[in-house]
């Protein structure tokens, strides 16, 4: 039970996640706050604000995989402190998807490459 004076705040909030776009689209509406330059395999070095980050590179489980494997895939992130491979999209440029191997502690050292040029990652 809550005092009525608080209604205006909470009724507006409703479900507390309602201000977020759905998960799959979150990646496309992300805020851009860093200032480093990302290397697009197509366009070269550009301000990171031209790009959209999608996620870490992950292997999609098989359709009949255990549900816990799917939960890990959808909801868990490695959040490595150090090098990791990520999906990026040149949204304000050539509109290409590509991969970046980036040291998350040091944005400026990274390697960009096309998905088709990458070795398929181990199924972790």
């Amino acid at each position, binding site marked *: 039970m809550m005092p*009525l004076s608080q209604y205006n705040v909470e009724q507006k909030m409703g*479900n507390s*996640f309602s201000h977020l776009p759905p998960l799959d689209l979150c990646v496309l509406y992300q805020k851009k706050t860093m*200032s480093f330059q990302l290397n697009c395999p197509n366009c070269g070095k550009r301000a990171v604000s031209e790009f959209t980050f999608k996620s870490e590179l992950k292997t999609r489980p098989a*359709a009949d995989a255990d549900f816990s494997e799917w939960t890990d*895939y959808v909801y868990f992130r490695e959040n490595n402190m150090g090098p990791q491979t990520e999906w990026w999209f040149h949204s304000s440029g050539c509109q290409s998807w590509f991969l970046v191997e980036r040291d998350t502690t040091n944005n400026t050292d990274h390697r960009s490459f096309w998905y088709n040029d990458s070795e398929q990652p181990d199924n972790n």
Partner: protein
Amino acid sequence: MAKRITTHKYCELPNLGEEISFTFDGKRIPAYANDSITSALISSGTSLISRSFKYHRPRGAYDVHGQGHESLVTVDHEPNILADRIQVRNGMVVLSQNAWPSLEFDLGEFNDFLVPMLPNGFYYKMFHKPKWIWPIAEHQIRKVAGLGKIDTAGKNAHRRYEKRYRFPDVCVVGGGPSGLAAAQGALDGGKQVLLIDDNPELGGHALHSIAPVSNCENEKLNGFPENKAVQRLIDELAAYPNLEVMVNTSVFGVYEDNLIAAQCGADLFKIRAKSVVLAPGATDRHLIFENNDRPGIMTARGVERLIMRHAVTPGEEAVVVTTHDGGFHTALLLEGAGAKVAAVVDGRESGNAKGEFEQKILELGIPVYKGLTAHAAHGRKRIERVDIGPLSGGDAHHSFNCDLLVLAVGFKPQVNLLSMGSKRPEWDPARQILRVTDLPSGTFSTGEVHGCAGFARLYAEGVKIGKVATQPDSSVSDENPHETERNADEIIMALPADIESGGKHHFICKCMDVTRAEARASIDEGYDQVETLKRYSSMGMGPCQGKACHEAVARLAAQDTGLSALDAVPTTVRPPFSGVTFGVLAGRAPYLSPIRRTPFHQCHIDLGVKFLNAGQWKRPDSYTDPQKEVGVVRNGLGMIDVSTLGKIEISGPEAIDFLQFMLPGKYAKFMVGRTRYSIMVGEDGILFEDGTISHIEQGRYYLTTSTGNQDAINYLFQWWLLVEDFNVQVKNLSLAYAALNITGAESREFLQKIVEIDMSNEAFPYMHCRQASIAGVPVSFFRIGFTGELGYEIHFPAEYGESMWNHLMSEGEEFALNPFGVETQRILRLEKGHLIPSTDTDALSSPYEAGVGFAIKDDKADFIGKAFSQNFKERGIENKLVSYQLEPDAPIPEDGVAVLEIGKSAADVKIAGRVTSSRLSPTLKRGVGLAWVRKDMADLGNNFTIRLENGRDVTATVLDHAAYDPEGLRLKS
């Protein structure tokens, strides 16, 4: 009193420009075109410029360079402008701030006499409890403890804010001798150089030095006084074609990967440089003693600037407090300008070798006192007398009458820009300054910021660093260029951070009016870490953001907590380095984003439309009253522009497999000429989009998506194509096609008149698509119904937009065809109970709970979100999105209000859901809408309570699906 001089014994005076005038608090002030507001005010004898933040103490010009808060004024309606930094314009209207009723007679100064009653953390302690008092107290506090008034009405917001970009090889920040030399070094290395300075002219402090240059690498500069030598250096640079110079430009941030943010007037410059050389220089160090904030106490460089750049002597009778030969230089400039120098008080003991200017002062017979410093200032609106005594404090030895006290007690490097790469400054005991070393790769620094001094040395180090900077990957430590040989007399020993001379007005942070006693009290209360001390006492949190006081704060915090000077760690420095107007950050109004117009834009304008902003799109909200426009569709024939829909064509040998994978529905038996409703879910099973999919011709499919997701869904398709490797082509036709929805009972009759194909219900049933033409233009027809009436969506090449609109409007005249807008469509769809993903759903909405689970066929092989869709189905539902209606005449709830479950008593209230969309239905004459409610409340005919924003409750009834035409007879007729 201060005055303008016409001759100087030791140097030429500058060209002051033409005579003009402006007003300060209504008083006319004569000035010259090259004056800053401050120099003009001083020359006219105005020593009181502002009032301090908390105690409303009188404040006057201090460094004449805008490092502190003293010169904050309102200029031509723009508040919080640093008078030090603004060149006067004829007729300019300048107002003082933070004083009431007037600057001279400020009632707030009463606070000054209440000092013991306004201790640190006063606001926290006083208004902590009860909780309700804080909002009231805060309102009162903000009224008295304020800066300038913001023109919230925007009546004077006439500036156009632009963003500009530069990509130099080397960006040099700071145009003093070392910055100029660094620019020359980089230019000689063949690089494109951008040189930035925040003053109206290049040259830095060398512009007001008459010390002769000798032993300079650049031999052409030797033998000239520094102010002439630096001018020659500037002339040399002017010959380089690869140099761009920006003056009056403040760099306020240095960010990752050499991104530099700078403000010049109303322009924001974003500069991406291959290398950056920071040469921000140093300012005079503060000296903290009793009443160290009184007007008439000024820095040596401030005084020199006034004399040499503006031909103004800021006082008649001066005392100079110093610890190095530079103070004697200032004294000589004052003497040469006709001021009386009552004494030079040198903190060094008499054993030191005498510098060049000290010799001159002694020859002039000016009294010099050794081993002493300032203890206390007397006078209120202007200093009248100063007491001097030992460095260790205690009792004063002498007292001098003066109206100017000059502080020349060493230099405080401007480390702020260097430490923005998250490096904290550290106390360097050998150089007696706070320094930042170990800069990020590609960022270099040089000059006084490392304690380097003297024109020849600054030049040598600058050129060296400029050359290093031509190779962004090189590292300074390789060659150690900051370790330029320095003489022992070059190191200026720091005086005690506070002179322990008694009294309660030793101001550490002048912006926030924090005294030494208050800082000590805070430490005693347990705030003994510099970060907490800063937050609790608000030291360094004022307009100067610690630029003026961070060194003193760090040193005193270390001292008062019993640490050594080496542990004097200043607080973290973050951008912005200087005040930045919001307009500069925001850019051109309304925002720097394209406006997207549909092909029918002009048609809408001609009809007097009211537009609404849907993302970047301008869409028609309504043409008349949306409530009336509903009638157009329900009783006649309406047309709406739906060109902003996303339109994606999918074709290729594996197109059907791709759709089976991308969408949760089944498409194995999807015949040509059929259209289906489809939802989209993510891998998390959450509903995020709906639209239609049509089989246009064998192997060619056409998907429509909502306006908001037009681009995002295309990007997502591209990604899946890449990782899943289907033999498919996906074409984004969103902008290539215009689209209209023609709807109403007469739509068939109308369209049959203008198209060649059979439009009858038998030949072209509901949820089918056809290809035809109108007036020779190829058109795709989709028989769908978002509005609940018989309707057809037509898509055709965008370039026919206007002519098609006009053709339809004239052909439709006999059917009373009228356009309607998006707001009208929202009412129409709510009458039909249709949801809009992201409006009526969120990041937790399962399609089953949203009532569109029928669109998922989870028994097929694999598709996006299969695992979670199955899981959602197994788990069943907890909440449900329901269509509801209200009693006639009940008030209409606002979108987003709560659905309540009211128990036995009125106070026993639980939130049981929320309204997502709510409108008055003109057709049914009552409120209709969509709401999330708990499963047990979602049964057909159940009543639930909605609480409006005004606290009133209304009762809603759950509907089967739609309030209007629930069987869909009109749609399928």
